[in-house]
């Protein structure tokens, strides 16, 4: 059984696609959700093999969603859209396939055949994703989009990943790995990313450790492993 996940902001659209998938193929629908943030969380957790992804969604669209994903968990992606103005772009991104709403069951069968073939070859999906220009964070019932320049540092702990800015700290579903790769923050510790523009001081300690003091006087640990790259970044 292929493990599938559906992302669409419309309940009926999700239901219909799920029904159709159950009719035409042997699939295990591991999750379905209504927005990109939920999707990131579920993908990171459930590692689905295939993602049926609506393009037009609130705040973060389907394309942007892909840049929030770690390559390690990247599923095969099938875009679903109501109107084919995005189709060309979807092809450029070299997604596996795309479907037009309302979905034709026969067409869906062909898509499933492609998916099976792709999974059989074991080839890892690689998508060109748009540059991440804002970090989506949960803020009450809204999605807060944070400009990477405003970020002072990012910290992960057991409760998740926290983005620290002058405005306060925000919870994000994105992993440190994705953030490090996508927005150009520097890793200074297993659990910390630092924005070099906000560094006030680096204090070297014993045992090859160090400590960063940020402009707003926060102290971050620097582990032995990352001190070198940090120094290189400052041409020290």
């Amino acid at each position, binding site marked *: 059984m292929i493990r599938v996940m559906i992302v669409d902001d419309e309940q009926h659209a999700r239901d219909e696609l799920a029904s159709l998938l159950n009719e035409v193929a042997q699939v295990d629908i591991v999750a379905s959700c209504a927005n990109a943030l939920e999707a990131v969380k579920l993908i990171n957790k459930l590692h689905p093999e295939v993602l049926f992804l609506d393009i037009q969604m609130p705040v973060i669209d389907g394309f942007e969603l892909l840049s929030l994903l770690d390559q390690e968990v990247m599923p095969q992606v099938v875009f679903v859209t*109501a109107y084919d103005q995005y189709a060309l772009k979807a092809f450029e991104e070299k997604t596996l396939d795309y479907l037009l709403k309302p979905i034709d069951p026969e067409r869906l069968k062909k898509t499933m055949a492609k998916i099976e073939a792709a999974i059989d070859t074991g080839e890892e999906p690689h998508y060109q994703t748009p540059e991440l220009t804002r970090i989506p964070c949960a803020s009450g019932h809204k999605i807060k989009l944070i400009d990477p320049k405003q970020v002072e540092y990012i910290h992960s702990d057991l409760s998740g990943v926290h983005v620290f800015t002058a405005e306060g700290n925000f919870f994000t579903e994105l992993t440190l790995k994705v953030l490090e790769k996508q927005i150009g923050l520097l890793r200074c510790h297993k659990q910390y990313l630092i924005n070099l523009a906000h560094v006030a001081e680096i204090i070297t300690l014993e045992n090859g450790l160090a400590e960063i003091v940020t402009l707003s006087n926060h102290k971050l640990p620097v582990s032995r492993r990352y001190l070198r790259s940090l120094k290189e970044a400052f041409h020290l």
Partner: protein
Amino acid sequence: MDLTISLLRQLSVFLVIAYLFSKSPAFKPLTEKNLQPKSKLLLFAIFTGFSVLGIYTELPVEGAIANTGAIGAVLAGLIGGPVLGSAVGGTAALHLFILKGNSALVYVVSTGVAGLFGGLANIYLLRQNKPDQVFSPKAAFLATFGAEALQMLIILMMKNPFSEAWALVKVIALPMMIANPIGSALFMSMMRDQKSMFDKVGALFSAKAFNIADRSLGILSKGFNAESAKQLAEIIYDETGVGAVSISDGKKILAYIGIGDDHHLPGLDIVSPQTLEAVRDNKVIFADGVHEHFQCAISDSCQLGSALIVPLRVENEVVGTIKLYEPKNKLFLNLNKTLGEGIAKLLGEQLLRDRYRTQRNLLVKSELKLIQAQVNPHFLFNALNTIIAIVRNDPEQARSLLRHLSNFFRKNLKRSGDLSSLEEELDHVNSYLVIERARFGDRLQVIEEIDPELLQIKIPTFTLQPIVENAVKHGISNLLDAGVIKISAGHSRDRAIIAVEDNAGCFCDKLDGDGLGMNIVDKRIKNLYGNQYGIQTECVPDQVTRVALVLPFEERESK
């Protein structure tokens, strides 16, 4: 005494000539405030003629002469300034010199000096800021008197022996100093009368032209057709007082008023070869009735004898003609010829403006069509997808949704009028919202607060739905929880306000820069009702976006 009478008799000949001259077209340029070089040349020729004539008709007095030669020179100087005066005086003097040689040297000098004197009088008057006095008979009298006195002085000084000079001056001084100034004054008074007549005619002409322009304004905005042509023809007929006025398009008579309206009927094809020529060659044709006669091509018994045919041009393309006619027994006034050409030009400009306006309206309409067309596909496919899903569990709801979808599209496609009632617009919006609510479920809430009094108010067609659609898009697209759309309609004493609000408060910047196609709605309302109405937008980031249509409202009399 005899000499005075002889001089006056001689003068009367001049005055007759002057009178005839003042009536001739050649006179007209001389009445202008600033004389053109061409007019100055004419003035020079005419007054030199007078002076020379005065010399030819001189009266021999005791071996010398008494003449009126100075008048021309003085008047030329007075009207045209010292240069012209000296030129006229000098030319006359030169002529005298060639004729008589040294013996007439005194007169040669005195005639030249007379011209200079007139010119000095001109300068004096202009310096005193009394340019109108140049044409006053009093000034002419005094200037001529002064010039003659000067002439006597010169004779006394130059002629030898003095006793002989004295004897001569005794005889001629009084007659010349009386007769010539009188002649000068009369001459000037004639010119002044003629000049003021030209001024009056000019004023009359301007008044007519302004009246026609004023009364014809806006008539052509309803289009160039039989009705507007009739109104225009009436105005032109009224103001010019010509025998008949006809307005045609390129092929047919649109309107005809005046003599001959029994057979020059509106709706008939143009048959007159002159009119056809005017249309074909894009040129003004004038059959003045003297050199060229106008011959009516419809009826031989037609009384019309002269005609002015002016093509009506829009961007140099002939779209019709304006014709002015006079009957055979009446002269076609030059004034009306000029007026006729002016009217055609004026109407051509109005037609051009009208053409631009039509094009602008068409542009707005096609922009509108584009917007209508743009909305549909995405909404349509999503709606269909939703209905397909719903049909599995709730066929009844699916059927209802399909009916709303039909209603929505029918309204979208069918409406072509400019205005529709709020009720009709709300019906359209309602069908749209029923479908969107089915799509988004709990995520979309709609609140409607409509004052029933406003249901019949007219708003530009297809305004409300796009605004609501924007609100839904924003409300839904930037919120993870429910988007709340509020549609309200209310009024103050004189304004109706129809507002659409969402609780997302995003795209504030887009609202200002009109990323949302609101400009065209605003433009339409302003075109319809005036600049104090239109679209008002408010946006508080992350809280609220409000788009309001502000329209005129008239409180109905309480029954």
